[in-house]
């Protein structure tokens, strides 16, 4: 499922993307199994655009992306009247039949995702009654249900309290390690995120992707 451990699961070459004027150019990036990469950068630097382009939801202006990835967007509403299990079933849009019925394989994938994220005990609970941290895990589960090999997350820790932030970040790290997934997530919570991430990437205001422990300092003036 995750392929050869050495070969990358997702590779972006000389990527440029944006609406009209590209927000970034010349981005080269490879994500391999086990990677749990933080993507940081100032507001407007193009983090969401990069994630959307890597997920194939937006066409690049230049360059190419090889491999497929699933993006978990930010700010998904907690719709009242959906149990967690209903929510996971709804994410299988293409995997379900015309009346919404799921194959045995998809049902097994839902079971596995609930176990992997430790949220089986919440399966029958209404989404509106979940805490923000529990709901974020549910959102991550929707990508696992669809057998994602590369998981992209846009601000998974936004609006979470400290405990929930740490729990979500540790969950991401353990998913990457345990399931040999490649994970790339954007976050502004640099202090916690840099501790849990195995790689640190930063998009500078000038549209250049930097990598390494010092990359955030090159993008944020107050970190220097």
């Amino acid at each position, binding site marked *: 499922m995750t392929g050869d451990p050495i070969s990358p699961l997702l590779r972006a070459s000389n990527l440029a993307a944006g609406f009209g004027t590209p927000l970034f150019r010349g981005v080269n990036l490879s994500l391999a199994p086990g990677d749990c990469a933080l993507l940081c950068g100032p507001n407007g630097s193009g983090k969401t655009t990069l994630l959307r382009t890597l997920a194939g939801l937006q066409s690049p202006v230049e360059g190419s992306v090889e491999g497929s990835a699933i993006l978990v967007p930010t*700010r998904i509403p907690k719709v009242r009247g*959906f149990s967690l299990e209903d929510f996971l079933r*709804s994410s299988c849009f293409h995997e379900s039949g015309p009346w919404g019925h799921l194959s045995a394989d998809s049902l097994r994938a839902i079971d596995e995702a609930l176990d992997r994220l430790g949220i089986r005990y919440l399966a029958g609970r209404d989404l509106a009654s979940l805490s923000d941290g529990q709901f974020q895990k549910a959102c991550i589960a929707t990508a696992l249900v669809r057998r994602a090999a590369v998981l992209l997350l846009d601000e998974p820790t936004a609006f979470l309290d400290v405990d929930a932030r740490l729990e979500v970040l540790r969950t991401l790290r353990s998913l990457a390690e345990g399931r040999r997934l490649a994970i790339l997530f954007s976050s502004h919570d640099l202090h916690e995120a840099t501790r849990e991430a195995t790689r640190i990437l930063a998009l500078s205001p000038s549209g250049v992707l930097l990598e390494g422990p010092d990359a955030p300092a090159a993008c944020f003036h107050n970190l220097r």
Partner: protein
Amino acid sequence: MYALKRENAYRWLLPVLLAVLALLDLLLGGRTLSFREALAALSGGGSPAAGQILWHIRAPRMLAAILAGAGLALSGAQLQAVFRNPLADPHIMGVSAGAGTAAALATLLGGGTLLGNFAAGLPVAIAAFLGAVAATAVIVAVAARHSGATLLLFGVMLGFVFSALTSVLAYLASEERLKLFYSWSAGSFSGLSGSGLLLVALALAAAFLLALLNGKGLDILLFGDDYAAATGAPAGRIRTLALLSCCLVTGAVTAFCGPLGFVGIAAPHIVRWLTGSSVHRRVLPASLLTGAILCLAADLLSQCFPVPLPAGSTLALLGIPILLIILKTRYDR
């Protein structure tokens, strides 16, 4: 456990309530026939006049109430998902107003009579249907580029424009035709004969099938366009299919029964409260039944008065208190 019991209860509660109200509407729906006479006619006895009233006036009116309620509730449930707004219904979105303007045009500027038989009312019904189609076409075109609040705002504005056009047409009309138009616009279940019932039933069946096939897409829309894109669901196509389903059934119902507000908003809310679920494979069929129940109850109420009241008014009088109680208990938690 309570939620589980409640979820199961609606499966038999709604059909039973519908059957009881349909029977009561036949037996008590009007002052021209007493309960005993209606019961005798229903069991095959009674006078020929009683049989005539029961089977040719009350039964079609009862069926019209069921079809209209079911159709408008089905539209409301879909529109509330498309616009992610609990206020959306065909009345608010301008679809009914579009039908109204076209009906006004046909009635006031030389069309047939809505109060007569099916053949005489057909030109106005066709005009109303085309009006609903035109309004929906405009909304579908806008839906291709916009969603959520922008689209809803556009629909409301479109409704205002159509209402203004209808007012201008009414202002220019003769008194006789004006009365005719107002009796249609007040809403009534009495204007449907056998052929009209068949047409509305076919439109409802097609719209329901379309809605059921689109149900899983409607679920996805509730979580936003970004989530839809992430799951690979084509949000634009889902919205277009839902609007087409709404147009089909709202156009047919409004053409024959007039613009009936409220049921499209209320029925899906009642269903979500009753079932504790927003999943469309449960909400759509249950809305169908609940809309029919609301319209039957409104028809029964409207027939209780010395002069039958417009169904549109009794619908609002009956349903608004129910809706307010549900909103209070469901959203104030």
